[in-house]
């Protein structure tokens, strides 16, 4: 485990992990947004890679992907962006969120090499379930990269135990069925599922999918070690698109204000 993960895991904070799309609305914006997120308390960063067929994502992130694609951002460029982020001072772990096909085309070895060269800490492949992840898991272990595992309320008990206990970086607990997006309600029995995950995991257990309000975040603070927010933040970025391209400084200020309103005090 690298230094950045150590800090992440040893933190006693209720961890905030944001998701943003690389290149949305520009590479420079992504850099500034990432730095702003760290400043506002992000414990790690998920960096999405634009993809033509993001079948685990809802409309908000789909649109972000389209914007990223329009910027011709691909997996390689996304990884290289991490190097820039490091140069600009980003210290939190960065996880590349990519669909499997992009990884396949780049080649797993090349990915690992680039990840290492550019300061990437983890990878999350939403369409690579545990059953299919054996090879990548092994390669990642050998290369000191965390392959982030997901578990869902529909994950069978036995499998939940297995995934939880093998998880690296953090364990991503899907808080609701469906694709990424903003939700107003969560399933019953979620706490139980989270507790079972926590009981078996050696790494922080984070809850994600659909969180968009401070109250929702509070809901999980006893049963988890942190939370992931994607669509709500990406939506804000969408709103700020024009400003981010023309008057970035102002936009970043607005963005930070939004984050402060969203986040619980303890995670800032």
């Amino acid at each position: 485990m690298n230094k950045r993960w150590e800090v992440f895991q040893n933190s006693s904070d209720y961890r905030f992990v944001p998701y943003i799309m690389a290149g949305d609305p520009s590479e420079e914006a992504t850099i500034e947004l990432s730095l702003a997120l760290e400043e506002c308390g992000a414990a790690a960063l998920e960096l999405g890679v634009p993809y033509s067929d993001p079948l685990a994502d809802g409309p908000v992130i789909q649109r972000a992907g389209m914007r990223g694609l329009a910027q011709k951002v691909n997996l390689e460029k996304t990884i290289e962006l991490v190097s820039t982020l490091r140069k600009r001072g980003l210290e939190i772990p960065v996880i590349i969120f990519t669909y499997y096909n992009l990884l396949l085309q780049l080649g797993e070895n090349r990915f690992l090499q680039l990840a290492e060269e550019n300061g990437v800490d983890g990878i999350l492949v939403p369409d690579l379930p545990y059953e299919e992840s054996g090879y990548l898991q092994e390669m990642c272990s050998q290369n000191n990269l965390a392959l982030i595992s997901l578990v869902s309320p529909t994950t069978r008990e036995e499998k939940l135990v297995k995934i939880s206990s093998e998880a690296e970086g953090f364990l991503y607990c899907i808080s609701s069925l469906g694709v990424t997006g903003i939700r107003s309600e969560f399933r019953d029995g979620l706490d139980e599922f989270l507790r079972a995950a926590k009981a078996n995991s050696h790494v922080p257990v984070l809850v994600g999918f659909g969180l968009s309000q401070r109250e929702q975040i509070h809901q999980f603070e006893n049963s988890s070690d942190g939370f992931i927010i994607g669509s709500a933040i990406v939506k804000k970025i969408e709103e700020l698109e024009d400003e981010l391209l023309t008057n970035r400084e102002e936009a970043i200020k607005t963005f930070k204000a939004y984050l402060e309103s969203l986040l619980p005090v303890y995670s800032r």
Partner: protein
Amino acid sequence: MTTATVPDHRGRYGVFGGKYVPETIMFALEELEAAFNEAINDKEFNELFQKELAIYSGRPTPLTKAERLSETNGGASIYLKREDLNHTGAHKINNAIGQALLAVRMGKKKIIAETGAGQHGVAAATVAAKYGLSCKVYMGKEDIRRQALNVFRMKLLGAEVIEVTSGSQTLKDATNEAIREWVASVEDTFYLIGSAVGPYPYPKMVKQFQQVIGHETQSQFTQEHGGKLPDAVVACVGGGSNAIGMFAPFIEKDVPLFGVEAAGLGVDTDQHAATLSKGSKGVIHGSLTKLLQTNEGQITEPYSISAGLDYPGIGPEHAYLHETERVKYEAVTDKEALEALKQLCVTEGILCALESAHAVAYSLTLARSMNKDQAVVVCLSGRGDKDVHTLMDKEGGEYR
């Protein structure tokens, strides 16, 4: 031959296949696999399936000797497996009936489906009506515009047609959207996939429900020919369901098999759907297979005059049969398919689907290279009524 052991227990056809889906729906695939395996080992289920095929869809479909087509063309005799005579007009219904019966068996009350041209959508809406299930069909906005008649048919059948505005607003996006919906409603919803694609066990299941095509063909042909097998079998390949169903009983036998992809404007242009001829390894809709993509992995929009072949991927078993060279995959252009469609019309009085016309076109080439005493069997996967608008547009003034 080489395929007796595929798929393996992980749903792999060689390297192809698998289940590349979000963790949320993994349990549903397992549940489905278990239910499916149980069902196909249940005599009652199989009998029910066979009965429904017979008394609802009108099976067995005949094997028609195309006498005048063969004569006009020269060379081997051409036989047509008449999937066009199925209820709703294509082989799609075989699979739809099978999956719907399975859904009922699993106690599911809702089905969802994706559709491009609307053929599978109509088949899904049909079986939903027949078995009293609710049905949502995901269809790209662009396809809804192009296929207004099929949209109306689905609605008449009681289905809800959901317009998909993401991506290129066509079949691949409709499939993405159906999968998204499935992820959200996985606990009570059955996803009725329309071709031999998708995560395991779908490719296996669709083959299971479509193999009636090949089995009937085999028994019809051998009966007429004193036990002899055909000298070649040809089928068009979109996702690959009619082809895999047709090939099923012949794969282990010494029968040359030909899958025909859509070459659109030509495989050397960027307007085609020749997945195996021109695609590369990748993951689409839950399965590792061959697909049309940029070298960075962005999936590209395919093109064919026939909406049913206009798919950037292909079922994983075909990718495997291609790699092992057990099946030869050829590509036929729009123009060749149109010519074949017209020739079949005027020599046999059969207006076939544009998809099927690709298979017919290649069978003509093949037959010409063979002897008079040999026989080629073509899967006529569907009828062409649905394509009359497209043909009218193409032909312009010529027929008007």
